[in-house]
């Protein structure tokens, strides 16, 4: 028994071994067997891996074709039988077919397209790949055929996943539902758009509009520009101003786009507010560097503001009343699901509230009254029409105006005992208005799932007009029966000042996604600029009458800068290329031409940015870009005044050019995003007013008032932000330095020595926090701290020599001392810091939601200076002698300012 068992076991072992050996037969062994069995010869290259590859099947068939097919199945080696020879070759890689998935992503509640929504594909054996929606909510992604899983993400909305088997080009439109927020932990996924860890874009920040609306503001007026000024790398200029000074650049070096149309002057009320009405806005993105090739014409930044399209399902709106202004917003369908509109309007009523006070001040004994006031208004309107599955039309319009007016009338008549009657009248009428008008018509067309087109025609105009008229007259009438007489004199003067700039543009942009690794954008644009820098008209009429004799004279003249026409053309191309799973490169080139006054300026502007993905949450980026600018803004450096002039380049004032290199890292942890960036930027042909120059009387010869030089700036920016959760906000810190130098012959400022730029601030810290306690109450706070701005302050009085007609100083000293500064921008204002607080009380009613906002601007009443200036005073000393004294005084305009507003949303 024992022997039998051993024998059976041995036999089984041998059989198993044989089976195993047979199952593991290498191709080489199988070939040898087939050659033996069928009498054929195998021909193959020695590099074929026959030893290492296992033959499939048993190879025991009687048919050569069948045995060959079975043996080489799945081995990656192909065979071809030629008579008695079998030729072996490596099997050709089977081409994988690809198809494109495209579509639009919208908000399910109101039909608004969502910009920058992420689309990520998993599966089909490859690594995750993705794309984002463009400015019109369109996405396109080319993927290999097969089973795929697409995940759609957008901040504030619930993620969506689509599983499908991709066998042809497919259209998938997604309607996002708002995320359900939980106070214990929000169920919101932060988006990973092109500006985040995964994207190549650096130096770009998106601010959610809802977060922006909660930031406390002056007078309760939510403002886009004020929110942008809280970001690292962005300075705000003077207290309360709407200027943007980005990475050492001037306020004219920012391309401000409203639905893709440039806006020349975004300032209301001397810069305290901007023209952007937050209620009409859907998306705001600021680019501080690493500019995509589709943007150009400005050196320092691009602010891309997109208006809402309007709810194409239901009617909604809001009415808001605050301390300074009233606002109205309405949106809804014109044709449900197809055509929608969005309208918003805003007007200040400061002049209405102040009218009684003005009346009291201007009333006099004769009961005359005057009228002085200021107001501004904005109107935004947009109509969106979906003309089929492939076409969409947009019409957008903006008009805003500031009005400052004064109307004073004085008249009186007095009769004396000697029958002499004297009457007089003085009228003064001042009207100063400025504002923008923008109109755009846009057509989106989807040629194919891979090709998207946008064609735009737009108009942008900025104008300001100042009218001053005075009328003075007096008459004397002697009512003497024997010798009556009458005499009168009058003078009428009318002064007008106008400045206009108009742009008409046509643009075509194309997006092409040929494969999953390439996302190509290209386009062309043409713009006609018309500058009317400043035209002054003056009419003076004088007349006098003595009895029957009348004499009159008049002056009627017009002077000012001549009109300038210029044309600008641009062509660009860029590719967002996923080189590997970890390395992504955006490379682009922009070519531009500018023709003015018989001269043509051209430039090539390379743009490149690169991202290395160290992990899903960490990436390192670097970028380089060149920018050109063909227009300049001549402005007062203290406050933004409406007669700031936009002027084109000339033969003596060449185009500005900048080179910027940036490097940094982005890290994402849960719902927090962190970034650190270092930059170095050079600017050529920047302008500054010469010493002693003023923008007043810039009606002619502005080129002689400015000097041309260069600037450079560098710094480090840190940003930590949270966009999702019950507590959102950001902390931004910037360390930076910005310098200027004007040392070219004929363009010397400061003796040719470098000096700090006006808005050179060493440190800048911003903390913005929004906290939602519950559905009824949310609190927001903003703290800003910054090193003071620079200014030129005369600190010493000296004598300076005067000279004779030969301009040689032979008699050195005049007898009037002069105050002088040691160097330009030698003085630094005190540090700026401010705390703003705001609280919203929400109450939901049946048909509407009421929001009551209380805010406190400058909560601890720190008087941040707008200006610093010397003030002469006189005082007596202990001996009773009068002495003159000059003191340094700061002027602040925004002490603690509480405000409130009431908003109804329906």
């Amino acid at each position, binding site marked *: 028994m024992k022997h039998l068992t051993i024998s059976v076991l041995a036999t089984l072992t041998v059989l198993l071994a044989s089976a195993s050996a047979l199952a593991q037969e290498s191709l080489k062994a199988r070939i040898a067997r087939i050659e033996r069995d069928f009498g054929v010869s195998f021909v193959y290259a020695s590099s074929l891996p026959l030893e290492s590859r296992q033959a499939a099947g048993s190879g025991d068939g009687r048919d050569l074709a069948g045995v060959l097919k079975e043996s080489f199945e799945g081995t990656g080696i192909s065979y071809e039988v030629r008579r008695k020879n079998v030729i072996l070759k490596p099997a050709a890689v089977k081409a994988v077919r690809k198809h494109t998935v495209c579509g639009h992503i919208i908000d399910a509640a109101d039909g608004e397209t969502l910009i920058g929504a992420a689309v990520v594909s998993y599966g089909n054996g490859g690594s995750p790949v993705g794309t984002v929606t463009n400015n019109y909510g369109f996405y396109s992604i080319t993927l290999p055929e097969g089973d795929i899983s697409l995940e759609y993400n957008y901040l504030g909305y619930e993620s969506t996943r689509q599983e499908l088997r991709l066998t042809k080009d497919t259209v998938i439109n997604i309607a996002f539902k708002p995320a359900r927020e939980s106070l214990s932990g929000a169920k919101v996924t932060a988006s990973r758009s092109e500006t985040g860890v995964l994207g190549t874009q650096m130096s770009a920040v998106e601010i959610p509009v809802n977060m922006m609306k909660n930031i406390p503001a002056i007078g309760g007026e939510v403002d886009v520009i004020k929110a942008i000024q809280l970001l690292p790398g962005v300075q705000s200029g003077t207290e309360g101003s709407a200027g943007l000074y980005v990475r050492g650049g001037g306020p004219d070096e920012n391309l401000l786009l409203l639905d893709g149309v440039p806006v020349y002057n975004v300032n209301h009320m001397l810069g305290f507010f901007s023209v952007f009405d937050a209620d009409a806005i859907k998306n705001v993105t600021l680019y501080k560097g690493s500019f995509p090739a589709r943007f150009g014409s400005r050196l320092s930044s691009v602010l891309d503001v997109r208006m809402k399209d309007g709810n194409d399902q239901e009617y909604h709106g809001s009415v808001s009343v605050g301390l300074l202004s009233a606002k109205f917003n309405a949106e809804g369908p014109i044709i449900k699901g197809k055509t929608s509109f969005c309208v918003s309007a805003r007007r200040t009523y400061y002049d209405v509230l102040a009218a009684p006070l003005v009346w009291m001040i201007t009333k006099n004994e004769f009961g005359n009254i005057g009228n002085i006031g200021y107001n501004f208004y904005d109107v935004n309107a947009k109509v969106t029409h979906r003309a089929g599955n492939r076409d969409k039309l947009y019409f957008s319009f903006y008009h805003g105006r500031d009005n400052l007016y004064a109307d004073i009338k004085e008249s009186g008549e007095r009769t004396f005992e000697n029958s002499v009657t004297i009457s007089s009248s003085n009228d003064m009428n001042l009207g100063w208005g400025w504002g923008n008008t923008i109109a755009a018509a846009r057509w989106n067309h989807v040629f194919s799932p891979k090709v998207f087109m946008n064609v735009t025609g737009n108009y942008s105009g900025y104008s300001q007009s100042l009218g001053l008229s005075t009328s003075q007259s007096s008459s004397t009438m002697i009512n003497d029966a024997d010798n009556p007489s009458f005499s009168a004199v009058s003078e009428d003067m009318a002064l007008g000042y106008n400045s206009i700039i108009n742009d008409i543009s046509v643009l075509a942009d194309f997006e092409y996604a040929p494969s999953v690794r390439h996302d190509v954008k290209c386009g062309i644009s043409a713009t006609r600029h018309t500058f009317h820098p400043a035209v002054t008209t003056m009419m003076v009429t004088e007349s006098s009458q003595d009895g029957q004799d009348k004499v009159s004279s008049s002056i009627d003249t017009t002077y000012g800068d001549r009109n300038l026409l210029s044309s600008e053309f641009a062509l660009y191309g860029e590719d967002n290329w996923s080189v590997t799973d970890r390395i992504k490169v955006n490379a682009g080139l922009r070519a531009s031409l500018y023709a003015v006054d018989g001269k043509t300026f051209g430039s090539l502007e390379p743009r490149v940015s690169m991202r290395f993905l160290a992990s899903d949450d960490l990436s390192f980026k670097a970028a380089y870009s060149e920018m050109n600018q063909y227009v300049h803004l001549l402005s007062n450096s203290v406050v933004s005044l409406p007669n700031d002039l936009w002027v084109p380049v000339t033969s003596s004032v060449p185009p500005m050019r900048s080179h910027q290199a940036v490097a940094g890292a982005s890290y994402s942890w849960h719902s927090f995003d962190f970034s650190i960036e270092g930059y170095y930027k050079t600017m050529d042909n920047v302008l500054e007013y010469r010493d002693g120059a003023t923008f007043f009387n810039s009606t002619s010869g502005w080129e002689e008032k400015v000097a041309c030089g260069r600037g450079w700036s560098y710094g480090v920016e840190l940003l930590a932000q949270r966009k999702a959760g019950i507590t959102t906000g950001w902390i931004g810190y910037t360390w930076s330095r910005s310098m200027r130098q004007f040392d070219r012959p004929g363009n*010397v400022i400061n003796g040719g020595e470098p000096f700090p730029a006006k808005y050179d601030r060493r440190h800048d810290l911003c903390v913005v926090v929004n906290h939602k306690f519950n559905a009824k109450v949310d609190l927001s706070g903003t703290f800003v701290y910054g090193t003071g701005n620079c200014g030129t302050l005369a600190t010493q009085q000296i004598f300076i020599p005067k000279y004779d007609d030969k301009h040689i100083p032979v008699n050195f000293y005049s007898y009037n001392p002069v105050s002088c500064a040691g160097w330009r921008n030698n003085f630094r204002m005190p540090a700026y810091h401010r705390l703003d607080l705001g609280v919203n009380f929400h109450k939901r009613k049946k048909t509407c939601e009421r929001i009551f906002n209380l805010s406190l601007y400058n909560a601890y009443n720190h008087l941040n200076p707008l200006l610093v200036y010397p003030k002469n005073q006189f005082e007596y000393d202990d001996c009773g002698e009068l002495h003159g004294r000059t003191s340094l005084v700061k002027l602040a305009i925004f*002490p603690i300012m509480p405000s409130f507003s009431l908003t109804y949303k329906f």
Partner: protein
Amino acid sequence: MLMKRFIHIFLLFCAMLAVTASCEQEMTFDGEAGSSDSRLVLYSLVVPGRPLAVEITRSVFAFGLHDGDFREGLDTLRGEVRAYVNGSEEPVVMEYDGSHDPASAFAPLKYVSSYIPKGGDNIRIVASFPGFPEASGETAVPAMNMSIHDMRRTDWSDGGATYEMIIRIMDCGEGTRYYAVLPYFISMQHDYKHDFVIENIGVKPYPYTIESAPSAYGLAVENLQRLFEIQPDVQYYFSNELFYGKTIDLKMSFDVGQNEMNQARWDWNSDNKDFRMEYKISVYLETFTESLYNHVMSRDIMTDVISSFLSEAPVMYSNVRGGLGTICSAACDTVNIILGADE
């Protein structure tokens, strides 16, 4: 009830505004813009052939009492002013000339030396006064490199004439240099028949009549505007930017009318004294350093500027280390053309 609450809140806010609003505040000057301490102010124009001199005052802090005497604290006995010529270690001592007016708080202290500078000298002036930081400045004295190369007169049929001259400038290529060519209108020389009593009357710049600006042989026509764009209408200054290290000829021409030519020279006798009146045109040629140019430009701005916080505050040029002021130099020459005289 809700409206009542709103009104109470609104009134409370208004009260807060009224109490807390205070917008103008005096500041303490913390010296960031430069020291408040007074410094020496030196001004010296060095001209070849003229004795070396420098005039000294002190600056007064702009924020404070206005009673500052611009000489206060400058002890003439203990102050020391030295000049170093061409890097020499042995200074040329400059003495106070005692010329200031004691009654005036404004007149400078003038220090002079017996040294007569010449073209090519490098002069460094150092001033040391107790209680002030040492101040010094230097300048390279230019040599006169301009001359009238040629001149001709073309008479008109009506008695007037056109004068043309060619001014040759030989730039030495030693840094930025400025030039001025200033023709002067008819100046009258009141001359007791060579007794050399001269009185100039009615001197003023003479406008070019044939060309809007002198044409320059050796320069392209389109450069002419650039040549004079520094001060095209007033002072005819130009730099050597376009002809650095080269020699150029400037052609200047101007008309003299019939009346001026007829009265070019006449003699008369009065009170038994002989008088001669001569009309002439003087052409003043000057080459000067960049420091003098910067001083002149910033001084023009200082005196012309609209005093307003809305205009750019001017910066007074200074090349004095440790102090303020300008040490500069110029070389000049005058060519007189006596009208009507035979050439």
